[in-house]
């Protein structure tokens, strides 16, 4: 037997417990409809697992625990789910909550639930999960999920397990009756809890007004292997409060805001212990509990074992409640319970008592009067608070101050209100203040969350903006680069590299000069024996380094350039090679000639060499020609070169001829061969000459093109002047200036000049572009003329419209109309002729035009594709060949087309 300590305060209200302990626990009738709330515990509501219309079996889980602090809910009996909706639940607010409504079928068909044969075989977490699955929540009143408390052994050292059997609140006898009738289950439950928490000792705290229960328990514990003590505490309300009971049994105070486990203690209610026993040994989930129905209005006050979800009305009927006498229905005890107005509210896991009170028994609270500061409340407060101060603070909404006065340590026991001579509803004030504070805190949390989310959003938007900007910049940079490349690639790059090269060359030359100078200076100084040799030496070395560097840079640049403009260099190289070959050939020929003159005997060998060299030279020349045609095919062939080539060929020919003649004279036997060579050379010379002629004619035909450009410029100029003059003229006409006539004359002169220029241009164009068909007019020019005429005509017409009486203008319009028509006719005739001509050759000009345009489009398309592909580094060869094909096609079409235009 442990020593009993004392807690501060407490009261002794009338117990009223005897009424309901006279008869044993009765089994409550099963109602037709059970209303099972899915939240009967503190924490997160369970998640419904069934649907309306489902058939459920007794003990089947209908809602599963969600989250850490939660408890599952089971079907109290077999039946059918008829509704899942908001139903009134036992709560001080009188609000409704989500409930599963089950229509019972009186079958009481169990789902196959099975207890554990040996619970010690399971690991602790498994065992706790098993208990959690049975939906057990504290049966003392708060309904805290039991499995959470059973986990306390994990992170706390639990010395003492306290089994709360005090049941201090008046009227309630549910635990008392349970202990009297089912002590064995309680003890077995304690064993399970003991196994899980491994405390040093177990104390059952029980008030001395339950003598019967104490006797039964003692009997049950006789010879029990575990260290279980029964400590009888004096009856005083609220000894059953967790903290108060701990203080009573151990003398330890649980710190404010802490939990008992912080001081090594865990409390469990006897009802919970019994429920754990049921769950572990029988596999029975928490689907029923013992409820006291008492009060003066109940004619048969007693305890019932009622299924969870049973409406209070069913129990009231079973207890034969006098409806007429009934004035108040209180759920819970008279001190901490709350009034309910609806008999259909169901029994839940935490309902321990329903008091059907008469008006005499629980009269309405008298009106509150002013606090007289008697201090009685402070004397009875088991939490050692200052109820009066808390009251003031709550009343004036000084919630912070109330909080600082440990409002949250108030267990809402109602002792202070019970003793208050002014009948102030103190507990209500505390409840109000607490919920206000909680609400404020919740709002604060929400505000904090909102703030975080708002800031996160702002940050995200900022980030997105930056990213977009960066992307945009990157795109712009890419585009600029691409453009720069495009612009630089064909023109500026070689030019710049050439410039560079030139610069480098100069630099290298300068460096070399400097080096030389330095050397001379050094030499001189050395020779003179001057004393600044060391310095000069240094200078010389520096100069040498610089020169080396410049030379290296030049060399690398040159190498780079050769890479860049390979074909050009190739031709150069080839040229040199050809030249070298030719020189060698000449030398050999000379040697041969001299040898022949001298009649030497190694003639054959020499001849062979000459032949070889000739071949080589030919090959080199050929390669050169090929390269030339390859690189500069579209360009106009260099006439000068060709001329030289032709001249060379001729000289060679002559030489060969003279050699032949000589040989023939001397009667040498290689005359035949020589003759052959001469013939060859003759042919070569002829081709060279021909090539030269062709090139010359080409370039001479190119010359008039310059002339056309000049003429075109002339025409443009004339046109501009003319237009200006015309404008001035119209302006003058509009303003009726007297100089109009003069101006008109000037304009006409200009027009004539312009016409002259145009005709000259046309003539030149005609002669250059169509030397064969000279009389044919240039269509383009004609078109231009027509459009010019049209513009003029329109202008004149406009002017005429403005000044309809002007005879001169009218004349001019007529004249212009005529010339316009003429020009148009000429143009149309020309066009028709062109088409005809084309048709004569079997070509549809229009179709040709379209085809050419399409071919051009195809080329650009492929070009673009190549560009894209090169950006992606994919295989280009195919595309390139395609491009070449398309280009050829387009070129062909274009040339055909240009023939006709």
């Amino acid at each position: 037997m442990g020593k009993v300590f004392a807690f501060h305060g407490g009261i002794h209200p009338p117990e009223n417990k005897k009424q309901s302990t006279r008869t044993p626990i009765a089994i409550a009738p099963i109602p037709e409809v059970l209303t099972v709330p899915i939240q009967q515990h503190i924490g997160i509501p369970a998640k419904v697992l069934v649907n309306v219309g489902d058939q459920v079996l007794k003990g089947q889980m209908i809602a599963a625990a969600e989250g850490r602090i939660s408890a599952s809910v089971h079907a109290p009996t077999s039946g059918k789910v008829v509704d899942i909706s908001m139903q009134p639940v036992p709560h001080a607010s009188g609000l409704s909550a989500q409930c599963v409504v089950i229509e019972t079928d009186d079958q009481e068909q169990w789902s196959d639930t099975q207890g554990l044969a040996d619970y010690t075989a399971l690991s602790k977490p498994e065992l706790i999960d098993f208990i959690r699955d049975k939906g057990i929540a504290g049966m003392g009143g708060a309904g805290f999920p039991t499995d959470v408390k059973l986990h306390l052994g994990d992170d706390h050292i639990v010395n003492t397990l306290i089994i709360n059997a005090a049941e201090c609140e008046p009227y309630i006898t549910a635990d008392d009756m349970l202990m009297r009738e089912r002590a064995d289950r309680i003890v077995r439950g304690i064993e399970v809890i003991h196994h899980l928490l491994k405390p040093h000792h177990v104390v059952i705290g029980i008030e001395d007004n339950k003598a019967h229960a104490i006797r039964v328990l003692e009997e049950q514990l006789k010879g029990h292997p575990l260290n279980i003590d029964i400590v009888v505490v004096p009856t005083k309300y609220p000894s059953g409060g967790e903290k108060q009971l701990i203080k009573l049994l151990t003398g330890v105070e649980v710190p404010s805001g802490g939990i008992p486990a912080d001081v090594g203690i865990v409390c469990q209610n006897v009802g919970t212990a019994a429920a754990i026993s049921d769950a572990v040994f029988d596999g029975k989930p928490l689907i029923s509990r013992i409820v006291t129905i008492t009060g003066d209005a109940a004619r048969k006050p007693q305890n019932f074992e009622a299924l969870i979800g049973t409406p209070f009305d069913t129990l009231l009927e079973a207890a034969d409640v006098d409806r007429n006498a009934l004035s108040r229905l209180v759920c819970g005890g008279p001190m901490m319970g709350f009034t309910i107005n609806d008999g259909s509210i169901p029994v839940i896991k935490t309902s321990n008592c329903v008091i059907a009170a008469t008006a005499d028994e629980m009269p309405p609270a008298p009106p509150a009067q002013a606090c007289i500061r008697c201090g009685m409340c402070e004397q009875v407060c088991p939490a050692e608070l200052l109820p009066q101060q808390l009251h003031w603070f709550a009343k004036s909404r000084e919630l912070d101050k109330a909080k600082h006065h440990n409002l949250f340590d108030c267990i809402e026991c109602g002792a202070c209100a019970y003793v208050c001579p002014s009948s102030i509803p103190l507990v209500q004030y505390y409840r109000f203040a607490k919920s206000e504070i909680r609400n404020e805190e919740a709002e604060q949390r929400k505000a904090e969350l909102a703030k975080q989310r708002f800031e996160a959003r702002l940050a995200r938007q900022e980030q997105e903006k930056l990213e977009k900007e960066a992307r945009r910049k990157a795109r712009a940079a890419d585009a600029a680069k691409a453009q720069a490349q495009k612009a630089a690639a064909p023109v500026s790059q070689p030019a710049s590299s050439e410039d560079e090269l030139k610069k480098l060359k100069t630099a290298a030359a300068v460096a070399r000069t400097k080096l030389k100078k330095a050397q001379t200076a050094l030499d001189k100084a050395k020779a003179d024996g001057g004393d600044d040799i060391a310095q000069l030496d240094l200078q010389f070395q520096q100069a040498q380094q610089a020169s080396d560097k410049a030379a290296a840079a030049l060399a690398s640049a040159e190498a780079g350039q050769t890479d860049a403009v390979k074909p050009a260099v190739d031709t150069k190289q080839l040229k040199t090679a050809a030249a070298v070959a030719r020189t060698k050939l000449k030398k050999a020929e000379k040697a041969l000639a001299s040898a022949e003159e001298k009649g030497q005997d190694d003639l054959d060998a020499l001849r062979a060499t000459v032949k070889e060299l000739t071949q080589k030279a030919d090959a080199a020349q050929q390669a050169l020609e090929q390269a030339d045609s390859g690189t500069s095919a579209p360009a106009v062939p260099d006439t000068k070169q060709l001329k030289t080539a032709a001249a060379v060929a001729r000289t060679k020919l002559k030489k060969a001829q003279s050699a032949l003649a000589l040989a023939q004279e001397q009667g040498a036997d290689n005359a035949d061969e020589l003759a052959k060579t001469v013939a060859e050379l003759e042919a070569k010379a002829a081709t060279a000459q021909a090539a030269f002629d062709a090139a010359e004619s080409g370039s001479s035909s190119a010359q008039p093109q310059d002339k056309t450009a000049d003429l075109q410029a002339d025409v443009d100029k004339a046109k501009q002047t003319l237009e200006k003059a015309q404008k001035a003229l119209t302006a003058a006409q509009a303003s009726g200036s007297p100089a109009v006539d003069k101006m008109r004359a000037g304009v006409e002169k200009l027009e004539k000049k312009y016409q002259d220029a145009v005709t000259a241009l046309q003539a030149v164009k005609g002669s250059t572009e169509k030397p064969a068909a000279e009389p044919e007019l240039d269509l383009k020019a004609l078109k231009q003329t027509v459009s010019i005429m049209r513009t003029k005509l329109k202008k004149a017409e406009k002017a005429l419209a403005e000044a309809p009486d002007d005879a001169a203008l009218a004349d001019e319009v007529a004249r212009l109309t005529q010339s316009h028509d003429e020009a148009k006719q000429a143009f149309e005739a020309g066009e028709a002729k062109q088409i005809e001509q084309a048709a004569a050759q079997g070509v549809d000009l229009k179709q040709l035009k379209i085809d050419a345009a399409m071919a051009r489009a195809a080329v650009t398309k492929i070009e673009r594709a190549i560009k894209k592909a090169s950006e992606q580094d994919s295989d280009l060869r195919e595309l390139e060949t395609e491009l070449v094909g398309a280009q050829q096609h387009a070129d062909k079409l274009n040339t055909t087309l240009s023939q006709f235009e």
Partner: protein
Amino acid sequence: MSTVVIAICVLLGLAAVFGIILGYAAVKFKVEGNPIVDQIDGLLPQTQCGQCGYPGCRPYAEAIANGDAINKCPPGGQSTVEALADLLDVEAVPLDAVEETVKKVAYIREDECIGCTKCIQACPVDAILGAAKQMHTVITAECTGCDLCVEPCPVDCIDMLPLETTLNNWKWDAPRPGIELIATDAGRGTEQRGAA
């Protein structure tokens, strides 16, 4: 004479010592940012509704710190005005709007939503979930009830519904103050006589 000199020396010495300590403390414990703005921001409801004329609560907090009126936040209500007045030690002025007493949250009538995502862009706290051409919905727990999403919705399918009272957010009412009676009030005397 020497006592005077000693006194002056001691005082000067003390002044120097404290000056050094204070100077050091000023550097060492320098507060980053503007703490008053944070405090004001802490008092504002963080609805981010912009009814104060600023794009959110923090900008308004900054404005208050720079001397703007403290009574511009309707969601905060008079209690916020008072709290701000308390913090800033100024006169509490009445709120310049009608106080919003009922907390509301947005609710999207989901079968009418066309999935235009306009509301998502309007929500200052990212409390709306959805994707283009998909039905949208409000995360009630995150919604501050700021109203900003209602207007942009082209099909007007967003309602502001008062926040439902559940068992978890239900509040106890304040007890009615005791009936203030005087002894001669009718009824009172009879009651007392009956009790006696």
